[in-house]
Every structure is written in structure tokens, then in C-alpha cells.
């Protein structure tokens, strides 16, 4: 009994010393430099990315009375700026949400069939068609804005219906910009698709339509979600396209902030930005719960 215990103890000690030697060897061979370096780098990048958001939220609680003075860390915590958020900000925010959601939806309705056709259609001139679908990715956003503004004016001169400054004008511009992302992510998933699954369903007597709805669609959904998420993000944060397609009485949230910042800066902008930051966090939590953010990783093939 005791001798076995002793042997166990010895083995454990041997094990322990081996591990310590292993660590020492690691330290001596500088093998820790790489993981440590990568960790420090990642932490640095995260701080870089998050610092402006943290500072914005922090400064929004500043209690000082002076206008146009932004202080971080805040002094005399107060919610005064939250009470002074102009109603236009809320309006613009809800407009942006609605616009982004509709952009994502329509981009998916256009992009998913396009991706299916591109991958499955066995098309002649597939390269050219694919290049045309992806062209909006190569057109600078600012150029998309100017081009659609002129298109809408030209259409308006012909028909009397001016899309500039309307919801529909914005929607067309955003959908044009966002659809290639959906095509990209859905194509990426489709190319890795195991066609045997569909065949199996067919052999078991499912109709082609049923196979499509019950097998194909669920399997490509991660790509569709990822594309939809990209489309939403593009639309929700966009300035250069919306800039040319909004009118002064009809502004998306980023444009409202942009003008607010360019013209008369008011700390209530910080308060409303903080609310948007909190909203974005909650939105991402919901996305994570429902579809999982890893869809972005699984189907990321924008190019």
C-alpha cells in the first residue's frame, strides 16, 4: 500500500519536475514570445477599436454646464444630455433601422437567387456575369451616391417623380451597394455544399421543390444570414451614399450626426450616440443568440 503510494508520489514529482523543465525550456527557447506577442497585439487592436466607443459613452455623462466642452473622464456625472436629445435623432434612428432592415431583406431576395444561379446554373459567360454582380463592390461609395443622385434627377425630369430625398431613393442606393455582399457569402457557402444531401432527399422521394425548401435553403442559411448582416451593417452606418440621397427634412441617423457634428456641436449628440452604441450591443447579442455570429466566419468570402 504505502510503497505504491510512494511510487505514485515519486511519479507525480517526476511529472512535476518534467513540466517545470518543459516550461523552463519553453522560456529559454523563447517559444512564449509568439503567443505573448500575438496576445499583446490583439489586446492593442481591441483597445484601439473600442476606445472611441468607451470614451463617447463616458463623456456623455459629463455634468458640466458649458456647451461644446467634451470631457473624458466625465466630471459631475449627470444625465442632462440624455434629456436634451432632439426628437429628430430618434426619428432618424428609427428611419435608419427600418432602412437597414429592408435593405438586408431585399439584398437577400436579390442576392440568394443570383448566387444559386451563379453556382448551379452552369452558365455560359459565368465570369462576366459574376463580375457584373460584384461590380458595385469596386465602385467607391461616394461615386454610387453621386451616380444615383443624378439618375434620380434624370428619372424625375422624365417622369415627374423625384426619388432624391425619399425613402425609396435611399433604399435603391443601399440595396445596390449591399447585394454583392449577400451574393459573396451565399456563393461561398454554396461552393462548399455537399450535393449528396440533396440527392439523398431526392432518392427518398422528395420533390425538387421540397428538397430546395427543406434541404438546400436550410444548409445555405449561414451564408444568407452573414450576407444579410453585412447588408444591415453597410446600410446602418453609411454616410457617403446617403449623403447625396437624403433631403434636409429626411435624414438617416449617421447623416443627422454628421451634420450635427459639422455645424453646431452639442453634447446631446454624445448621449444619442451612446444610446446607439448600447442598441448595437443588444442587437449583436440577439443576433448571437438567434443565428450565432460565427456565420460571419463560416461564410466569409466577400471577394
Amino acid at each position: 500500500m504505502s510503497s505504491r503510494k510512494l511510487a505514485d508520489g515519486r511519479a507525480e514529482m517526476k511529472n512535476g519536475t518534467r513540466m517545470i523543465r518543459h516550461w523552463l525550456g519553453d522560456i529559454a527557447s523563447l517559444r512564449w514570445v509568439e503567443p505573448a506577442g500575438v496576445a499583446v497585439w490583439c489586446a492593442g487592436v481591441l483597445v484601439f477599436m473600442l476606445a472611441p466607443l468607451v470614451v463617447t459613452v463616458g463623456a456623455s455623462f459629463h455634468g458640466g454646464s458649458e456647451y461644446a466642452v467634451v470631457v473624458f473622464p466625465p466630471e459631475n456625472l449627470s444625465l442632462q444630455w440624455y434629456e436634451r436629445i432632439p426628437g429628430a435623432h430618434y426619428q432618424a434612428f428609427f428611419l435608419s433601422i427600418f432602412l437597414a432592415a429592408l435593405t438586408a431583406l431585399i439584398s437577400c431576395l436579390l442576392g440568394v437567387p443570383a448566387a444559386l444561379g451563379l453556382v448551379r446554373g452552369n452558365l455560359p459567360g459565368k465570369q462576366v456575369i459574376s463580375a457584373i454582380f460584384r461590380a458595385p463592390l469596386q465602385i467607391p461609395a461616394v461615386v454610387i451616391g453621386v451616380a444615383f443622385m443624378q439618375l434620380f434627377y434624370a428619372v424625375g425630369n422624365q417622369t415627374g417623380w423625384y426619388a432624391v430625398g425619399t425613402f425609396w431613393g435611399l433604399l435603391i442606393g443601399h440595396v445596390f451597394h449591399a447585394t454583392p455582399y449577400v451574393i459573396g457569402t451565399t456563393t461561398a457557402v454554396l461552393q462548399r455544399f455537399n450535393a449528396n444531401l440533396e440527392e439523398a432527399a431526392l432518392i427518398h422521394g422528395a420533390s425538387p421543390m421540397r428538397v430546395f425548401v427543406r434541404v438546400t435553403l436550410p444548409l445555405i442559411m449561414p451564408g444568407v444570414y452573414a450576407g444579410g448582416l453585412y447588408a444591415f451593417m453597410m446600410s446602418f452606418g453609411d454616410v457617403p451614399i446617403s449623403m447625396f440621397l437624403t433631403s434636409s427634412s429626411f435624414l438617416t441617423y449617421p447623416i443627422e450626426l454628421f451634420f450635427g457634428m459639422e455645424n453646431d456641436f452639442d453634447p446631446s449628440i454624445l448621449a444619442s450616440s451612446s444610446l446607439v452604441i448600447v442598441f448595437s450591443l443588444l442587437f449583436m447579442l440577439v443576433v448571437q443568440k438567434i443565428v450565432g455570429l460565427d456565420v460571419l466566419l463560416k461564410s466569409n468570402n466577400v471577394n
Partner: protein
Amino acid sequence: MNLNWRAMLVPSFVVSLLLMVASQYLFIKSSFYKNVGFGIVDKTFGFQNYKNLFLDSFYIDAIIETFMVSGLATVFTILMAYPVAYAIARMKPNRAMILLATIVVSTFITIVIKVFGLIIIFSADGWLNKILIFLGIISEPFTVIGNISGVIVGLIHFCLGFAVLLIYSVVQTIPKSYEEAAQIHGASRINVFLKVIIPITMPGIIIGAITIFNMCMGAFTSAALLGGGRVLTLPVLIQRAVIMEVNYPMAATLAALLLAFVMGINLLSIALLKRFRMTKAIVT
């Protein structure tokens, strides 16, 4: 399967093609018109806008500045994003998710808000500048308003999240066994990184860099807000031509030029990429 995949593609193709051709054709055509003033346009065809543009050193400087700012922002973004993308690709999934979630949330929030934060952080009497001056790293406060470095910082913020996601998709396709094989054969970690990982991911990095460069060339928010009227990139000039000068032909000319530059660079890099792949095919 007897579903008609080709027919599926037709409606979206028609919509995409129509929107693209109509919008691009009209604005490029209007770049050849003459501006009469007060938003009135003389529809006679001519190259005067392009001539004015290329003879004016103001616009030439703006073009150079746009390229420089976008190029530097792209390089810094890729340098910052690569290790992060690599870490996400090699990390345990649950840890990678934390990094990913942070990056997505930060990307999700409009750049205008991030620009506020940047201005607060780098304000002349802010704590960051105080610390840096106290430590003797800088002698004068570093601000982000009205100078090129500020615009570049803004652009990096705009692109970083996308860059990480783009590069991740490339790194993730390299099996870890490649690295292990190189290591077993005695390569140091640094050599594995420089001679195995970087070369394999090079085509992906180039494509990612092109995408980021395109984003920067078209990005206007950071240059407009942080440039403070002193950093004039092409997107800023386009917006000014439309909103302040109401000179649509000039805006169209600048936009056409920007489009031509971006397309040209894309085609060039795709050609380079093909050559790169060909030489690699010959070597192996």
C-alpha cells in the same frame, strides 16, 4: 435537380445590370457637360471639365493626397488586422467568439460615432496627450483634426473590422499541419510565419488589401470630419462640388476619375495576382 437555376438568376441580374448601367452611364455622360452655374448644365459634349481638372494643381494635389491617405491606411489596417485574424483562426472557438463579437460590434457602429470618440481621445488637453507629453514621447499635443494622420486613423477605424474578417477567411483555409510540418523540419516560428504562412496567404492578403483600398478611396466621413477642410481627398471634393458649389458636371468628373483610378488599380492587382499565381505554379 430539375429546378431551373438559370431562371432564378435572371430577375436579380436584370435589376443589378439596369441599376448599374443607368446610374454609371448617366453620371459619366454628365461629366462631359458644361456647368453654367446655379445648378444649370449646358448639355454640349466636351472635355473641358477634364482639362480644367488636370491643369489645376489643386486637383492634382487632391488626387495624390487621396492615393497616399488610402494607401497608408490600407497598409496599417492590414498590418494591424493580420495577427488578429491569425489569432482568431487558431484560437479555441469560444475565445475566438469574444474577439469576433467585439470586432463586429465595433464595425457595426457608424464611423461618425467613432470619429467623435477619436476627437475626444486626441483633444489637445485630453488625458492621452497629457500622459504622452508627461512621458516626453511628444512635445506638442497630437490632435487628429485637420491633418493627414488624423484622417488615416479615422480610415483605419472604418476598415479594421472588415479587414479582420476578410483575412480570417484566408488564414482559416491553411491547415495547421503545414505549420507543424515546417516546424518538425526545424523551422523556427518566425521562419514558419515568414516563409510558410505569409506566402500561402499572400494572394488572399492582396485581395483583402484591394478591398480595403477601395473602401478607403470611397470613404468620405473620416476625411470630411477629421480633415477639417484641410485634407481634401477626392470624395470630399465630390461632396463639396455637389453641396456647396452645386456644380454637378465637376462632381461627375471627379467621381468618374475616382472610379477610373479604383478600377485601374483593381485590374492591375488582379493581373499581378495572376502572374503571382503562375510563377508559384511553375515553382511548385
